[in-house]
């Protein structure tokens, strides 16, 4: 729940991370999450069930067991539900539509209630604890290049993974959803078992990728040599041909 409180606005996360993060290291993360979780649980479950039956049950079944229209989410866990709802990938307007990132359909309280309900359905993963501000950029970069860059690209711009699937760009990925994605492995993405330190490091580097230094000017190179070549030809060469045309015009 730590991240749930602190995530938006981002500034609050930094404050909480600084104070609570230090405390969490002493008391132990398990205690913290369990303790914070119990407070809202009873109230949320009823609201969550109501929202679930209204918005999710037609595809995922009344107890998350799945239907021909949608997979079982019994073991999706809090992490899976939170990721899907917070990134707007769920709910889908129609079962046949592709999952794409959108503004979330529910507000913060509704998401928390739904997440609590889905988590109660089975033994899915909890929402991972992640504090980007305590992460180490250099270690995060190493983890990112070794595990994430193959699909999401070294610059985080995303790209195809074949078969019509696209690894999305990470420009909107916040630390919480990044951590959830690694735990859950949503869609075609594989799951990872990063420890808490690794998640902090990785989240820190993904944050860095949102605003890396661009000392060289406009960052068109985020899609690499394809954009560069396009510009070289359709800006560079075209301009230079025009310059040659002007230079070589018949003297008067």
């Amino acid at each position, binding site marked *: 729940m730590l991240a749930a409180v602190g995530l938006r606005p981002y500034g609050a996360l930094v404050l909480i991370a600084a104070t609570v993060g230090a405390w969490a290291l002493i008391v132990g993360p398990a205690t913290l999450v369990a303790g914070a979780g119990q407070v809202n649980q009873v109230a949320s479950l009823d609201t969550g069930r109501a929202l679930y039956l209204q918005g999710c049950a037609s595809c995922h079944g009344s107890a998350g067991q799945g239907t021909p229209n949608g997979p079982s989410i019994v073991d999706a866990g809090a992490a899976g539900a939170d990721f899907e709802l917070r990134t707007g990938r769920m709910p889908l307007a129609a079962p046949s539509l592709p999952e794409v990132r959108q503004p979330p359909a529910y507000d913060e309280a509704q998401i928390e209630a739904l997440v609590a309900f889905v988590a109660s359905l089975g033994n899915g993963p909890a929402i991972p604890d992640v504090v980007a501000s305590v992460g180490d950029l250099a270690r995060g970069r190493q983890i990112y290049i*070794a595990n994430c*860059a*193959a*699909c999401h690209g070294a610059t985080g711009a995303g*790209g195809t*993974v*074949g*078969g019509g*699937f696209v*690894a999305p760009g990470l420009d909107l990925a916040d630390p919480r959803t990044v951590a959830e994605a690694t735990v859950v*492995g949503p*869609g*075609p*993405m*594989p*799951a*990872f*078992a990063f420890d808490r330190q690794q998640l902090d490091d990785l989240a820190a580097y993904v944050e860095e990728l949102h605003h890396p230094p661009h*000392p*060289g*000017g406009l960052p068109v190179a985020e899609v690499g040599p394809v954009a560069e070549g396009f510009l070289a030809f359709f800006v560079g060469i075209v301009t230079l041909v025009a310059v040659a045309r*002007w*230079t070589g*015009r018949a*003297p*008067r």
Partner: protein
Amino acid sequence: MNDRTTERPERMRRSAPGDRQEPDPPPLAIPENPMAERIVGAAFVAALLAGFGLLGVYLLGGQTQVEAILLTICLGGIGAGIIVWSQALLPNRIVSETRHPLRSEPDEEGGVLAAPAITRRTMLIRLMAAAFAGLGAALAIPVFSLGPAPGRDLFVTPWRSGLRLVDDQGAVVHRDQIPMGGLLTVFPDGSPGSADGQTLLINVGAGLLQVAPDRLSWAPEGFVAYSKVCTHAGCPVGLYRASLHSLICPCHQSTFDVLRGAVPTGGPAVRPLPQLPIKLQSDGTFVALGDFTEPVGPSFWNIHSGG
């Protein structure tokens, strides 16, 4: 500058007394164009100012974009000034000249080489050619110093029976590091980061693999290990669609089916990714049962010869 433009055209002087004097070009009026003069002058002044501005920006610590804009103005001012000058202020006289045959006149000995004194000694010419061929062969020797003979390098990797599986930092890999549907790049203990030893350890879960029975035992509890080096052009096969159990190479989009022994299902690759025989130990770590049984990476002409 203004005075200069009213002068008569300058003429080439002859190079030395008594030298053959060529007629100089007939004089042409130098175009009068005060407007163009002002433009050229302004362009040069802009270049001058931008050049010193660039120096100033540099001395103040530098800023790439500002430097580039000032450099552009400096270079562009000079260039545009010269071009406008050439177009508006030079007597651009179209001249015609005769084109002459390129082939040289034959001299009295006939032909350019014209050397019967040499060509008559046919035997010696052949021997000389042979001597140069010998020299060529001798000089080719250093070329073979440039790299080792390929030998068996292409057929083997650092994997050996009993070597533990470690990650890119050299830490021993535990099964808990790879959740269901996850994967990790692993290396033989002692060679972390090895280019030909790089291997993907994938947890597909027990019961899903459809490989040959003898190879099923190489994949304990659904942990299967394939070479990460693409069999097409050698790129790391880094993209994994876990839900479809397919590996994709980002370079040329060769696609491999993890459940069916990493056979290629798309793209230009032909050979499956070789499978590494591994064993899961009771402490949750893995050891290799030997090297890959076929060469990893891209094909070469005698790849099927077994080395």
